[in-house]
Every structure is written in structure tokens, then in C-alpha cells.
């Protein structure tokens, strides 16, 4: 797994790559929690899944958990860049019902920033 985080105004941009499964779920969860703790101004999160080759319910659970944290304060989560296979898993999980999808990082940041 590779993880890149950038703070863009009121939004946190998270670029994920590699395989997101049980082996990396704890690391990913802890990293995102720490970033949110460090950046109390963050309201929305944009997740760029462009580099993700594989994801399953362990990885999606980490995203859902962070969504729950920010949505308490009215924050939203946006998704960009999912490959067709990754998108299918995200869709089946129901996450697309609560997280809006955008065609590009810029579009998502426009809504989130």
C-alpha cells in the first residue's frame, strides 16, 4: 500500500495505491486518524483510488469509519479515480450511496475545498 495525504483548505486529499486489504487496514486507519487529529480544520475528505489495484471489505471498512467520524460534523467524503473493478466493489458495498463520486481530483476538490 502507498498513502499520500495533502491538506487543501478544508479538505484532506488522500491518494491510495496498491492492495488495500486486512494486511494494511490497521496502518491505514491509524494514519488517517492521526491526520484528522493533526488537522482539525478538515471538514471533507477526497479519496483518490487511482492507484488501487485491489480492495475488499477490510479496506472499505476503514473508509466508512473515517466517513462516520467527519459526517458527525457535517463533513462529506468524495471518491475519484476508481478502476472499473475497484468501482464495482465500492458500489456493491453501498459506499456510493453516501460518498459522491467525481471524474477528477480537481472536480472533487472544487466541491470539498
Amino acid at each position: 500500500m502507498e498513502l499520500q495525504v495533502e491538506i487543501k483548505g478544508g479538505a484532506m486529499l488522500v491518494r491510495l495505491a496498491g492492495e488495500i486489504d486486512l494486511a494494511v487496514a490497521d496502518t491505514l486507519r491509524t494514519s488517517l486518524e492521526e491526520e484528522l487529529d493533526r488537522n482539525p480544520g478538515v471538514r471533507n475528505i477526497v479519496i483518490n483510488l487511482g492507484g488501487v489495484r485491489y480492495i475488499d471489505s477490510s479496506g472499505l471498512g476503514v473508509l466508512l469509519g473515517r466517513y462516520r467520524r467527519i459526517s458527525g460534523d457535517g463533513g462529506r467524503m468524495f471518491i475519484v479515480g476508481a478502476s472499473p473493478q475497484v468501482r464495482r466493489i465500492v458500489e456493491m458495498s453501498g459506499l456510493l450511496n453516501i460518498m459522491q463520486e467525481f471524474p477528477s481530483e480537481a472536480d472533487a476538490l472544487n466541491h470539498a475545498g
Partner: protein
Amino acid sequence: MEPVNRMRVEFTSLPANVAFARVAAAAFASQLDFTLNDLEEIKVAVSEAVTNAIVHGYENSAGGTVVLAVEIRKNTLKIVVEDTGKGIEDMEKALQPAYSTDPERMGLGFAFMQSFSDSLKVESKPNAGTRVTMTKVCARKASSPAGR
């Protein structure tokens, strides 16, 4: 005699082995002429079952052994994932989408296994273990066993 091709792998209940298990299952399955999409589905189904064995069956301890057995019979793939961990107390609840005994998890493991296989059977006994059996039929005609 009907020719059957079988593999059975046992491995330590470590999170890093989830990826190993799905790659092994897909490599074996690729002897049938599955589409890339089918192989992706097989990977997710196996990952979910193996993750459950590690997370729920063995409660994240690395002291357990997970068994993954895969069998090819004609154009049908049969996948069994087994643990000898704590077992499932309430099967009916466990199989419901979005039900999880772990607040950090989504409760979608069995839902994914069901969506991505043609049949799913779950057998479990508290304090004895859990066995998940899935089958998936390959729609395209199988190539000969040596033909790849």
C-alpha cells in the same frame, strides 16, 4: 474415473497471508478459462473468507492455521476455507448483510462471498471452527489441463 485437480494449502493466520491466499486461489482457478472479471471475484471471495478466519475465527492471533482447498471438476471450481477457531454463535445474524460483531468492520464479507460465487455454504460450530464452501462455474469451455 472423473479427473479432478485439487490443491489444499494450510497457512499461518497472519494478515499478510490474505494476499497470498487470493493469489494462490486465482492461480489455481486460472486453469479453467475464467474471465479476468471472474478471477477478480474469486480473489475477493477468498480474501473475505480468509479474513474472517483470521479476524473472527482466530481473533487476530497468529497462532492459528487457515486451510484453503480448491478443486476443479469439469468446469466447476470449488473453494473451501476452513478454520478451527471460535465458530459462529448466531448463523442467521452472521449471514445478514451489514451485520458484524466487530464495530470496525462492515459486515459485508458474506455478502461479497455470496455475490461472487454461484453457491455459498457456511458450516460452523462454536469453539470448534468454521468452514465456508463456495462454487463457481466457468461459463467458457475449459481448456485441456495441459493446454495453457
